[in-house]
């Protein structure tokens, strides 16, 4: 049993079966990749795991707990965090505030503490600030802490989104196409970043990505899906040589 287990999951949208009888098991601490041609259902899988969709059949367990009927915010509290394909930062907030927000799940302050500015509130705010700044430092963003998140260059925004996701202290981190729009240099830096983050925080990382160099470069295990079904699971080397995978990407004759 891994830290994240998807068992026999099926999701339909009207007549369309987006995901069919999917099984996936992530070992704790692993770097797992989910790939497949466009429209294969990868984002649907992500959305099922994070609670945006509810599976029609099957179950999803996070660290042994059933999560497939829970709302996204409960799942986040239980230890799952994610980034988004099209970057969803809080545009009117600063870099620092974006990260501070993510600490929300573990806040202790009550509403009256906030209103009356009690000692407890002041103390917790200091902690939040400290934690957020140290996280930003790791991601090389501490110099831009007070800038509006929307003013950051693209690469920095992606880093910020990952930093923000980490501020929830997740057990499992889901990255939705983090290398999208990056040049080769940035992709390499991203690879280093993901690996070091995994090592440093002892996380499990699930990566959906189209950039094959990134996937093959850092993933320890890869699952390939097409038309909502698994067509291969293995190490990068095994996947690269798998004829079914090649056919799915290049198209059958």
């Amino acid at each position, binding site marked *: 049993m891994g830290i994240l287990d998807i068992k026999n999951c099926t999701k339909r*949208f009207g007549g369309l079966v987006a995901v069919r009888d999917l099984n996936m098991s992530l070992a704790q601490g692993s770097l797992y990749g989910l790939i497949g041609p466009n429209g294969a259902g990868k*984002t649907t899988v992500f*959305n099922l795991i994070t609670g*945006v969709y509810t599976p029609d059949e099957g179950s999803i367990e996070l660290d042994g707990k059933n999560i497939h009927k829970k709302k996204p915010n409960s799942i986040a509290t239980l230890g799952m965090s994610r980034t988004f394909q099209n970057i969803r930062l809080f545009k009117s907030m600063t870099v620092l505030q974006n990260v501070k927000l993510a600490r929300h799940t573990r806040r202790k302050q009550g509403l009256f503490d906030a209103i009356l500015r009690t000692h407890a509130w002041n103390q917790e705010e200091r902690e939040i600030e400290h934690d957020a700044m140290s996280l930003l430092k790791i991601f090389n963003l501490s110099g831009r802490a007070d800038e509006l998140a929307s003013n950051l260059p693209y690469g920095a925004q992606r880093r910020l989104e990952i930093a923000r996701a980490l501020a929830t202290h997740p057990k499992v981190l889901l990255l939705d196409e983090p290398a999208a729009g990056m040049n080769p240099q940035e992709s390499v830096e991203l690879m280093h970043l993901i690996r070091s983050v995994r090592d440093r925080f002892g996380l499990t990382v699930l990566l959906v990505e189209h950039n094959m160099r990134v996937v093959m470069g850092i993933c320890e295990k890869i699952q390939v899906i097409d038309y909502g079904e698994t067509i291969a699971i293995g190490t990068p080397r095994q996947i690269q040589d798998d004829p079914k995978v090649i056919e799915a990407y290049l198209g059958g004759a």
Partner: protein
Amino acid sequence: MITFLQQLINGISQGSAYALIALGYTMVYGVLGLINFAHSDVYMFGAFMGYYIANNRVVQARLGGSVFAAVIVMLAAMALSAGLGMLIERFAYRPGRTRTRFTLAFWLGILGAVFGDLLKHSAVGMLAGAVIGIAVGVLVELAGIHPVHQDSRLGLLIIAIGVSLFLENGGQLVFGADPKFFPEIIPSRSLNVGELNLDTQKLIVLLVAVILMVLLNLLVHYTKTGKAMRAVSYNLDAAKLMGINTDRIIAVTFAVGSALAAAGGILVSLLYPKIDPLMGVMPGLKAFVAAVLGGIGNITGAMVGGLILGFAEVMAVGYGSSTYRDAIAFIVLVLILLFKPSGIMGKGAVEKV
């Protein structure tokens, strides 16, 4: 039983008036995603135009009290209201969508006319004010100041509220706040069908409303313009890419919706002759509820919703209490939005993340 049938006819009559107004709301929401708060005031404008035209001595002299006169009054009011609708679209809603010119000139012109009238209570004052306003507007625009692109429906909603307030207060200014009495351009006679006592006025109102709705259906489903309207309501950008002049289609939508509202205004004024500049507020809200009830964006839905709401109201007043009459619409609204926001004929859309 007889009372029930009478109430039924009352309800359908009332409901068809709501339906005519609701159609305007639903069509505009369909193409723009906007709740056009100002629509209720176009309804009022239509009624007033009918009033002024019907009372015009030239009209009365030439056409007398014939059916022909009534038709002319109706058509003229509808045309004028269509014009108003298009003006509103052009100068209040379109600037947020595409780069338009003379927007500021338009509004400052009106503001200037109002001030001019304020300062010098005369046509000269108004004209001078208008000219100054237009001039300032044109100059500012030449200086490079343009309307901001509205990405949010909220902004459009607030603009709609502003336009509505403008028309209501403007109406009070121009028409006078005191109520007037709509002339009986269609005579009211009693007709006895079996044991039922029917009013010819109510029947004619119903008939005209039905004719208009049939015509609308023909327009929307059997003409190229109608097809374009439907395309725009499904996907504005795709329609643009298909070569449809979306700005023109949107203008047509407003024109048709406004004309129908004006017709509704005149028909209702026949049944309830007291008209005043704020007469559109309640019927407008209720018609909006009818549109939501039927599924906003759905034309058949607006018709169905209007009839149901009219019927419900008449029943509530007839068998219940009349003080809560206005509340019926709001209660229906709240219930619909809480339990089936997509309305009777709408389908819920699954949002893709």
